[in-house]
């Protein structure tokens, strides 16, 4: 009896500690997000050396990811066209191909796959870079010089990744919708005029808006999660791969959740 009571108290204690820890982390994340958003608003108004970091971040995140994004979007677009053109006309629904292309590439998989690629490439890179900087006291060195690490290190990465995800999503759409058309010409010939007219007929401004909103939200999620995890490193280099894995896991989960919420709003 006494043993089970003690066990119960211990469990309540553990729950309490877990709750406290979760509440503390949530408070820290909220504070960090507020600071990042505040400094982001001031970023372009301030004359500061962080602008170069912003440009470099776009270079690393957007420009260097162009080949992989092009490859995936071409492959996905081509697959939809080939499969759709083979199956849909059999049911007299050939024109659904264009709706399908817009739904899959523009509204759903374009932003989401772009986000996944950026999580794997830049999310991990940012988290590990910041984590290593914490361990080697480089963040403290910025503070000592008077440079706000949020303004100089975080905001350029936050804005750079967000801008990059938006640009790469547009690029994914372009390659997925038009590049794949060219690719399919080797397999199945579709007149370009017919393709273009049908595609534009299926495309609504809300599709483009949905794609853009998702890309902005995903960019914010990816960069913030990476930064948050990077700053969670405390003293040991063994923490760095752990936070990189967490940055990827949390990034994926939060992007999928955000995708579901935005899609639900779209259909309301």
């Amino acid at each position, binding site marked *: 009896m006494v043993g089970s009571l003690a066990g119960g108290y211990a469990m309540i204690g553990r729950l309490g500690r877990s709750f406290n820890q979760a509440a503390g982390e949530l408070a820290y994340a909220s504070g960090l997000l507020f600071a990042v958003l505040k400094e982001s608003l001031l970023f372009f108004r301030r*004359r*500061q*050396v962080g602008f170069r970091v912003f440009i470099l971040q776009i270079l690393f995140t957007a420009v260097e990811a162009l080949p992989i994004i092009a490859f995936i979007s071409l492959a996905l677009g081509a697959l939809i066209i080939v499969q759709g053109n083979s199956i849909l006309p059999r049911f007299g629904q050939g024109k659904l191909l264009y709706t399908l292309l817009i739904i899959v590439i523009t509204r759903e998989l374009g932003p989401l796959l772009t986000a996944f690629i950026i999580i794997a490439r830049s999310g991990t890179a940012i988290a590990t*870079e910041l984590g*290593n*900087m914490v361990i*080697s*006291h*480089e963040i*403290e*060195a*910025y*503070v*000592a*010089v*008077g*440079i706000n690490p949020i303004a100089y290190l975080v905001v350029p990465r936050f804005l750079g990744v967000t801008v990059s995800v938006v640009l790469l999503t547009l690029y994914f759409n372009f390659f997925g919708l038009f590049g794949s058309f060219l690719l399919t010409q080797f397999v199945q010939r579709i007149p370009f005029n017919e393709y273009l007219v049908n595609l534009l007929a299926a495309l609504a401004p809300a599709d483009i808006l949905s794609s853009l909103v998702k890309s902005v939200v995903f960019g914010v999620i990816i960069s913030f999660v990476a930064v948050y995890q990077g700053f969670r490193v*405390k*003293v*040991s280099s*063994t*923490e760095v791969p752990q936070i990189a894995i967490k940055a990827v896991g949390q990034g994926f989960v939060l992007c999928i959740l955000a995708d579901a919420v935005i899609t639900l709003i779209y259909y309301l």
Partner: protein
Amino acid sequence: MAEPLLELKGVVLASRGAGQSQDYMVLDRASAIFGKGASSVIMGPSGCGKSTLLKVAAGILLPDSGEVLLEGRPLQRLSEARLLEWRRSTGFMFQDAALWANKTIFENLALPLQFHHPSLPAVEVRRRVRASLERGGLEASEDLRPAQLSMGEAKIASFLRAIILEPELLFLDEPTPSIDHAALEKMMAMIREMKQRGCTIISVTHDAHLASMLANDLVVLKQGRVLAAADLATIRRSRDREVMEILSQVLSDAAAYDTDLLDLLGG
């Protein structure tokens, strides 16, 4: 004692390492006053919280409780502009150099200048950085990354970065270990010069030579507690047994417990 510039009042700081479930006390109600234009040396056994005390005094780490006062005003409540102005007039040399790994040595020294003096022409930035690197004997290393330097060279670069803005308040965290004799002489000459022109210097060191050259005031720490914080004459008069014991441990194994270590400090 000189007019107070920086004051620590009952500073408490707890920390938790990776994988540890409980906090441990790094600084325990630590209080000390650092006079304007004076040179203070912080001493104590390894792991007693000296570097942490220095970082709290420099406003790099925030205490859990207690206050850091700059000319009587709490550091945490300074306006952004005043804090930036203060940062412009301070320099901090890190124990492990803490150079920015993704920048060249030139860029490491140039960044504080570019940040605090954005209107400074690139030619002038280059001139000042090169002059500084030449003084430290690192002119051949300007295009190297920190990882390509030896620890001694990295520490010199960290020192040069700390003084590139010609600070009025200089924090030095174990500046001398790992540095070869010739480079050490150059660094000592630069520190001496800064002291002569009235720069306030607060240093953590185990180096008796540096301590004897620098110390006007002494702060003695043990397990996060400040045992003594006063000018040398006061500490010499008090002849506190615990303080003497720590100084004998810290300064040299050769120094016997009953040796007047403060005479050694006094040169």
